[in-house]
């Protein structure tokens, strides 16, 4: 058992580091395609990029690559920007330093301090690479230096939930009617899944194949099904740590019920059925994140004493 406040902070460290990483990956691909492709309407394309992150009502003056960088990469006050998410992870970590290894803390600290205060479009690749590399270092240190105790499990659940959530957002924003190779490759790349897809499916990319891979592949670590089943496993371990060792129905842990249903719903339906109202399906997948976060809150972060 551990302090509820610390469990809560560990969960959010997991979420924020993953958010910084995913945001850098998605922006790296999408903004690069805008600057590369002169035929694209930059204003529409920028609005689309904001849309992935749920930012609407964007003033016309913000519909430029430079403004996307200002708001979604370097703005430290916005917890959904790359620098802002790292800052939020770091602030959480500062409150629970004794629960993290020194290496993890120092890495988070130097990463946050090292994020540039402003980025020009010509230099954005370097900034994204920095963020991705540093997140990989942080994740590697977490993996290698942390005991697989409760603290680690909460962090892991946060990380996986955020990953599934970002995937759902990214898929929701994707125009399924555009079946061009270029659009599908862009989607796969922004999910950091292009190379893995090519190796798994060989041959040319098809949009239905890409959706199937991103949602249902059981061994690709960024697919929705993979993330959900890993969360389920982590929640089960948590429940066991808390003495529910004979959870024969697998439902003593309220979060598991939510995750289990979402996973079954994806896995045991026809792909055609899922893509029929794809936007709504992806919306629901995002709601799973909120529901699990609330369930963790009532069970662990703020249990009735």
């Amino acid at each position, binding site marked *: 058992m*551990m302090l509820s406040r610390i469990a809560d902070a560990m969960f959010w460290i997991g979420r924020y580091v993953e958010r910084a990483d995913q945001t850098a990956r998605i922006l790296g691909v999408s903004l690069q395609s805008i600057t590369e492709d002169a035929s694209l309407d930059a204003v529409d394309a920028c609005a689309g990029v904001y849309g992935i992150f749920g930012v609407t009502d964007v003033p016309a003056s913000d519909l430029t690559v430079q403004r996307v960088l200002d708001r979604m990469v370097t703005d430290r006050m916005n917890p959904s920007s790359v620098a802002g998410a790292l800052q939020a992870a770091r602030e959480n970590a500062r409150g629970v330093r004794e629960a993290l290894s020194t290496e993890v803390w120092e890495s988070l600290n130097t990463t946050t301090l090292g994020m540039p205060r402003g980025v020009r479009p010509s230099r954005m690749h370097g900034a994204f690479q920095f963020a991705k590399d540093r997140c990989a270092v942080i994740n590697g240190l977490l993996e290698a230096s942390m005991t697989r105790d409760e603290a680690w499990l909460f962090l892991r659940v946060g990380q996986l939930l955020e990953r599934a959530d970002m995937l759902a957002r990214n898929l929701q924003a994707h125009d399924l009617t555009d079946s061009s190779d270029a659009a599908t490759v862009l989607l796969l790349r922004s999910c950091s899944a292009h190379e893995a897809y090519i190796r798994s499916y060989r041959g040319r990319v098809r949009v239905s194949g890409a959706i199937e891979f991103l949602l249902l592949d059981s061994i690709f670590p960024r697919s929705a099904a993979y993330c959900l089943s890993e969360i389920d496993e982590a929640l089960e371990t948590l429940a066991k740590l808390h003495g529910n060792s004979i959870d024969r129905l697998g439902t003593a842990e309220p979060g598991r019920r939510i995750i289990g249903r979402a996973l079954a719903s994806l896995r045991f339906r026809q792909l055609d059925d899922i893509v029929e109202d794809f936007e709504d399906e992806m919306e629901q997948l995002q709601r799973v994140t909120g529901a699990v976060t609330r369930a963790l809150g009532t069970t662990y972060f703020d249990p009735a004493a």
Partner: protein
Amino acid sequence: MVGMPDASLFRTARTGAAGDEMFTPDGTVRPTYQALHDALAGLGPEEFRSRSESLALSYLDQGITFDYAGEERPFPIDAIPRVIDAEEWSEVSAGVAQRVRALEAFLDDVYTDRRAITDGVIPEELVTSSTYVVDAVRGHRPPNGVRLHVAGIDLVRDGDGGFRVLEDNVRTPSGVSYVLSNRRAMAQGFPELFADRPVRRVGEYPGRLLAALQAAAPDTAGEEATVVVLTPGRYNSAYFEHSLLARTMGVDLVEASDLVERGDRIYMRTTAGLRRVDVIYKRTDDDFLDPEVFRPDSMLGVPGLVRSVLAGNVVLANALGNGIADDKLTYTYVPDLVRYYLDEEPILRNVDTWRLEEPDSLAEVLDRLEELVVKPVDGSGGKGIVIGPAASREELEALRERLRADPRGWIAQPVVQLSTIPTLVEDGPEPRHVDLRPFALNSGDDVWVLPGGLTRVALPKGEMIVNSSRGGGSKDTWVLAAARPGDPTAAGTDAGEELDEGIEDPTDDTRDEFDDPRGEETEEQAVEPDPVTSAIPLIEADEEEPHHDAQ
């Protein structure tokens, strides 16, 4: 040292002024500093400056910061250590321990019989007029009798070069984390300075602290006592220290909102519900501990905490109400308290001090205000201090009014010419004023003094106030170990004490960040037989390839 490379590094530090710990007025190096001086000089000014800068950078990377006006700043560390020789340290250490024992006895007396008042050692008004006496804990004696688990005693060198006590800190003395991190940074950044100089280790502090806190626990029916560190939160200026101590002791760092009282016991909120807490190392002010007793308007604190203390179910370290012992008026009586409670002569002297309640003293102080230092009795961190020679006429006039209105609230001292140590500033090392705060732990059986302590340095030229809120930095503080047996210079040293003295070795990677707080267990393991796995071959003999037959 032919060619004298030091001529360039320490050129700016030889000012010929008196009171420098490294150089005599004629510019020769004092023997205690000789080896360090030569090693630093050997680096040359550029190498020295570049490594000094990397020290500051590493503090920023590690988040070793303090809160300055809402901003996180790296705590300034100066790369020229302070050196104290073994003989002088043994006196300082004994003097600090003696003072802590006297203050401990004084606290016990104040909250029980008040014999010292009956016997005329201190005036009754000293206790009755102090705002720091907490009536709620009158008559309560903690389980192992200790109220002063952690003390920091501020020392300065006077004009004669000897140490004197400037003030006592017995509520929540801070700064020990910088002692630990300064040593770590110096061992990493300047490993060669430690060669040939037996510097005593400081890394055992967290383990000693945990032991002292556990010793203070109420009866836990054989279970291991649960110790926590209570912090006001990460916006507190000393948060780094709270976190470091919790981490190195391996205990939880809690905020008041993590704690709750049920049936006169204190529990912390965990993911598995409530868990009992036995000892709270509090790093918050008394005023914000328990709204039932202090400040009913406050949202901060743990309602019921004081009730639980009085019920004997939880122990606070340091105890509630310790402020009476570091009231600056009490300070003036400490030498008498040492004689009264311990029947010993004080080893460390006070700085001469005027009590303004005595009409003659008040008159003299009002007359000589421009040459004196005046301090509020309840201040800490350099707050409210007026230095006569540096104050304007208007300030002094206003101060006179306040002294007349509230003589109990102030003490006056002559300006102490603090000693200096060369410190790296813009143009190179220059003499800067320093003080010393040794830390002492009282486990009930024994008062242990951390070898060294925090040397704070005032970075602005001529400045006498060393607090970090006034632009102060710090230095690693080296206590040299007594000469080893067999060493020709060892004559006359006490061989018994040497065994105790851990020596710093920067190349020793076997240690973690700091020493293992559970040192005793490590020793036990050392005498155990080899681990079982070494007795079991990785592969069973009869499963191996029978290569002899195969031929």
